Structure formats: structure tokens, C-alpha cells
């Protein structure tokens, strides 16, 4: 069935599996409308969206055991993002079992939460490895962007979370 929205999040090493969401019109409206199934034909003329997000950044400093904190080095930065996407379907049509198109004029609203946590987030092991071998081990595991698309894969929005290079970038 037609999507209300789909999400996909990306980090430097590729997509973040847990952030992929697919919300169909059926998922959005089935609690309020009987006689609709996942295979029902629907015509949704217009959906509006809104989102808000919170990014958490982790900065890992590493030093050798016999050194003081003056020698600690920012070796690894990672972020995770939680985003809430709200949607609203002002009205839509669906084809009932008799083959007739039925108008659903009621406003349907809803929201879903996207959890984008890249592999290696807040990892002490990765911080130590990046300290030991900074030229071959990645020093970042950040959420670069989250794509939100609507019906028929039409792009709706791209969320660009903050991707800090050092703590003072957070404000």
C-alpha cells in the first residue's frame, strides 16, 4: 500500500538499519476505518509533515596510561539522533470491496519516532583503536543525514543533524 512516509538514515559507512521506517496509509488509518486492508487501493492527494530532532554527541578522549590528562587526545566523535516525524492526512479516498470509491473526510494525524544510532556510537574500543591507528581506523561515527520520503518515494525532507568536529561546535 501507498506510504505515508519512509525514512532512511546515513552515516559515513552506509545506511543505519534501525532508522529505516515504512508507515503505510493502512498503518496510519486502519484504527479508525473499518473495511480497509493492506491491499486496498487508496488515493491520497496531500499529506503534510513536520519533524523535530535531538542529536546526542559523544566525544572520546584517549591518553596513555602513564601520561597525564594534559596529553589526552580527542580521538573519536560519534552522534546519535532521535527524530519525531508527524504527519497529517486531511482526507483521502479508498476503493471498497464493491469497487466503489469512498471519501474519508476526517483529518488523520499521527507521528513516528526514528532512532538513528550508527554502529560504533559511544564506543570506547573504537576510540582506543582510532588513537592507536588514526590513519586506518575511522575517527567518526556520526549520523550524516536522514531522508524522509512520501508517497511514491517523493522526497519530503532531509534532516541534517549537527555533526560536530569538537565540543565547542555544540551550542
Amino acid at each position, binding site marked *: 500500500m501507498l506510504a505515508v512516509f519512509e525514512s532512511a538514515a546515513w552515516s559515513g559507512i552506509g545506511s543505519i538499519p534501525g532508522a529505516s521506517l515504512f508507515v503505510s496509509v493502512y498503518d496510519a488509518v486502519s484504527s479508525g476505518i473499518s473495511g480497509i486492508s493492506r491491499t486496498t487501493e487508496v488515493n491520497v492527494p496531500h499529506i503534510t509533515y513536520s519533524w523535530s530532532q535531538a542529536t546526542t554527541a559523544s566525544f572520546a578522549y584517549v591518553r596513555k596510561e602513564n601520561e597525564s590528562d594534559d596529553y589526552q587526545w580527542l580521538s573519536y566523535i560519534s552522534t546519535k539522533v532521535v527524530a519525531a516525524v508527524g504527519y497529517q492526512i486531511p482526507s483521502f479516498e479508498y476503493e471498497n470491496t464493491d469497487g466503489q470509491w469512498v471519501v474519508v473526510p476526517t483529518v488523520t494525524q499521527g*507521528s513516528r519516532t526514528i532512532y538513528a544510532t550508527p554502529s560504533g556510537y559511544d564506543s570506547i574500543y573504537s576510540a582506543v583503536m582510532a588513537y592507536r591507528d588514526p590513519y586506518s581506523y575511522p575517527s567518526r561515527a556520526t549520523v550524516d543525514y536522514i531522508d524522509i520520503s512520501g508517497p511514491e518515494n517523493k522526497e519530503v525532507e532531509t534532516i541534517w543533524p549537527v555533526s560536530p568536529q569538537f565540543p565547542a561546535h555544540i551550542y
Partner: protein
Amino acid sequence: MKRACIVSLIVIAIAAVAYLAFSFNSLRIAVKSADYDPNDIAVLERGFNDNGKEFRIIKTRKGDNLALVYMEKNNMGFWTVSYTGGNTSPGTRLVSIGWFKNAGIRRYEVSENPSFSSEWHILYYGNNAIKPIDITPEQLPRGIAFNIQQAGSDFSIHLISYETPDILNQIDIHSLLIDTNCIKE
């Protein structure tokens, strides 16, 4: 050279006047270009949405039918029709429209995932009241705020929820108004 300057100033002045005139009337122009009645407009709600853009919910007409329209001001400062509401049920004279906005992000521990809350709005408008619209909190699910405006047979009912939107989706205002003899179809 002097003549070129004068012509340039006149052109700029005309452009400025045209921009101001268009900007001042852009709401009516947008309503008319979407085939709604620009002579029957009432602003019911106004504010700024999560994109930082000014919006207005207006009541107008398309032919003989009431309509609620969500208008948004674009980056140029002109109003545009974003979307419209519909009749709550086929054949009724009660129309509705919805919108929402972020209402807060909460987290106490940095290791926790934050929780989000939203303001969910649905506005109903009708022109067939036969007595004062009277809805009590007991007739609505818990956690719903509401605001009723009425002038004679015209009325609006604005519902707001800070909980899940399913609560608003499940309220049948039309049946409630019929059952309490507030409107007549």
C-alpha cells in the same frame, strides 16, 4: 544620464508599489486563485509553524460549500494555500481541518533517548447552529482542551491534544452536536 536615473527611479517606485499592493492583498489573491470566495474570509487561527513560517486558518467558501483553508506565508512574504479541510461526513455542513506543531523535547539523563510531544489541533466550523453550542469536558476524552466561538448560527470548535493524535481522530463532533440538538442538518 539624468533622464536614465529618473526612469530607473520611476521603475523602482512602480515595482515597489506593485510589490506592496500584491503583498497586502496576497491572501485574497491566493484564495481567489484556488477558486475560493475572496469576499467571504474569516481568520480563525494564526501563528507560526515548525518551519518558522506564519500560518493562518481561514474560513471561506467554494460555491455554496463552507471551506477551511491552511494558508502559509512563503519566503517572499506572499500567502499561499497549503491545504484544505473537508466535510466531516458526506452531506454535512460541518467542516474540519487539522494541524500540528512540536510542543517539547524532554530528557533528564544524557544516556536516555529524548521523548517528544506535539500539539495536535483540529478545528471544526459550521453555520447551522440552532442554539448556543454547549460542550462539556465530560463529553470529550480526558486530556482534550477546547475553545468554542459562536456568532449566531456560525460557530467554530477548536480541539487541542498534547497526547497521541488518535484521541482527536476518534472524536465524532458531528454526532455529539446532533445528539445535543445544537445543530440541525
